[in-house]
């Protein structure tokens, strides 16, 4: 019974958006009721989605707290997480965007917040993303083997596009312009790179978009009609 209620809500929610899209703005002189309440429905969903946010932090805190009080391997890291969490909450709650009118406590919180956010968090996340470029280099060195036509094509395209996107390619273009006759000057690295991006790459991306669209429709239909096996089993 309760499972059927969930399926009915799923169907009703999808039907609302479909009817809102398919029905005209005015039906026999009367405004489309689905369009009239569209803004309120969206804000309601926004609030509902935000209420779900705390699920993640609560589960994280539960896990880290269990690890900390067990004093097993990694308990120090769990303690650091919990302390950092409290610091994040306190500084974000009491900071002010206008420190000139704030008390000394608020000014200290603002400085601490900036240190934690712009210093610690930004430093960690941006550097973590930057680490990937090192792994790209080592992967390119060990794993990028040109032993088939396809891998050779891929590497050639990658090289031309990489050169075309940097001043190295711009320098090469100047050399090409100086050496080649006028009829062959389309052979500039930048021009070839743009052709690769505009023609074969666009063709393949469009093929992927069409395939993904069909898949999205099929998945959307299955979800809307609650035909997904995971929803059947719950």
């Amino acid at each position: 019974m309760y499972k059927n209620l969930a399926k009915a809500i799923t169907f009703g929610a999808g039907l609302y958006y479909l009817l809102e899209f398919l029905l005209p703005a005015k039906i026999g002189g009367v405004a489309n009721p689905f369009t009239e309440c569209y803004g309120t429905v969206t804000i309601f969903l926004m609030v509902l989605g935000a209420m779900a946010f705390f699920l993640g932090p609560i589960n994280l805190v539960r896990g880290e707290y269990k690890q900390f009080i067990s004093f097993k391997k990694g308990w120090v890291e769990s303690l650091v997480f919990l302390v950092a969490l409290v610091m994040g909450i306190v500084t974000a709650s009491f900071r002010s965007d206008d420190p000139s009118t704030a008390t000394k406590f608020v000014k200290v919180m603002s400085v601490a917040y900036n240190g934690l956010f712009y210093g610690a968090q930004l430093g960690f996340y941006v550097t973590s993303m930057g680490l990937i470029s090192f792994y790209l280099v080592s992967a390119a060195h060990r794993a990028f083997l040109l032993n088939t036509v396809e891998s050779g094509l891929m590497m050639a395209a990658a090289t031309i596009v990489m050169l075309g996107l940097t001043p190295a390619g711009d320098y090469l273009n100047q050399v090409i312009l100086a050496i080649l006759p006028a009829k062959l000057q389309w052979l500039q690295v930048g021009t070839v790179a743009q052709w690769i991006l505009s023609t074969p790459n666009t063709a393949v991306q469009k093929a992927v978009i069409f395939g993904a669209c069909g898949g999205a429709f099929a998945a959307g239909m299955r979800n809307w009609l609650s035909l997904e096996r995971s929803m059947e089993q719950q």
Partner: protein
Amino acid sequence: MNHPLTLWLGVIFTLAVLSYLVKDNALYRLAQKAAMGIGVGILAVQTWQQVLDPYWWTPIKTALTGGPASGLFWLLALIPGGLWYCQMSKKWFWVSQPVLGLFIGVAAGITFKTQILLILPQIGATLRPLNPWALPGGLPWDHFWENGNLWTVLDNAVFLLAFFTALFYFLFTIKADNRVTAGSRRFGRMMIMVALGAMFGNTAMTRMSFLIERMQFLFDFFAGLFQAK
């Protein structure tokens, strides 16, 4: 942002992450947990300050302090909002199904609309002309090879060939057991590899941009430190 605390914390966390290149170590793990904790704490406060407070709590507070009574209807949002937290218990997980179903239905409904609106212009744009005489300026015989329309049509032919063979490559229900289908699939695979190569180049650029930003930061910090000394 140029406060010494911000700069020093930035340097410490940057070097802690870079130390992972040598070996996984305790400093990296501590930095990871600290950054996670700070992020979750700040996000929790921001969720309240930027979404729940202005859109949910403020109308309720206004209604309770003499404003429009319609704001009290927002109290009802606590019922579906509270259902989310039943997911924390295995025994009561099933209670959260209606609110899960609501969002699944909403996502499905909006998907139909956005995919139709997104894909229809794509269909028209994919079908490029192969007739050079149909293009503006045509193809005069005296300037046959110099005419830009000829190269446009050749480009269009390559595009359409790449598009249909790449689309065909993903059709696994058709067997590639003759020269035509096997050849098409092979050509499609080659075009996909060219596109992947282009994506690899761009991927490298994005990843490097992060590293370059951090290197500039570290260089500016240590250069400033030595200059000050």
